């Protein structure tokens, strides 16, 4: 039972490049979330989904897009990466509305 798996674990991008972060969960959870964690700021919600085919904006959605085409997967896209998006990104899933199971994060640096 893998829980929540994030791919990749590390990535370095140049400003303006695009990339997609993948989150996969094997617990049949309806709710999935993308957070970013920055020093001294805790975790901030980027986007979330309450079920397959649905997405919604969180606290800091600008510069990001998401898709939930399959229940088990939640993708986070950066169309044109900026240095301000350097962060650790966490995906989470849950049965209920509070994020319950987190992945181990993707460490993203944008030069």
């Amino acid at each position, binding site marked *: 039972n893998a829980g929540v798996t994030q791919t990749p674990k590390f990535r370095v991008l140049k400003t303006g490049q695009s990339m997609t972060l993948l989150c996969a969960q094997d617990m049949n959870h309806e709710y999935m979330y993308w957070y970013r964690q920055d020093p001294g700021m*805790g975790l901030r*919600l980027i986007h*979330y989904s309450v079920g397959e085919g649905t997405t919604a904006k969180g606290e800091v959605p600008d510069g990001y897009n998401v898709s939930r085409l399959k229940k088990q997967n939640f993708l986070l896209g950066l169309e044109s990466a900026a240095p301000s998006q350097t962060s650790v990104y*966490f995906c*989470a899933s849950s049965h209920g*509305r509070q994020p319950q199971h*987190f*992945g181990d*994060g993707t460490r993203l640096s944008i030069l």
Partner: protein
Amino acid sequence: QQQVKQSPQSLIVQKGGISIINCAYENTAFDYFPWYQQFPGKGPALLIAIRPDVSEKKEGRFTISFNKSAKQFSLHIMDSQPGDSATYFCAAGDTGNQFYFGTGTSLTVIP
């Protein structure tokens, strides 16, 4: 603007002592208050949670105290152990599926 204010930023406690972390909020729409534990290089893990109609919830050595009128809640770790050394986050959620995290408390338990 930080929706949930957490203190202290760091805490050092002797083994066997009590660790206390405090959080405060302003938004009366918050109706669920979870705490998370995070070890270095890992994602947060849901530790314990409370609803505002309960003043205290205990799970093992972990207790949440909730003061609705003061809009404050705290985590108490009894008989603190070196294995409890981690970063702790409080959070608050509203009915709109958004959870706002505190900035975290780095706990070190000295043997």
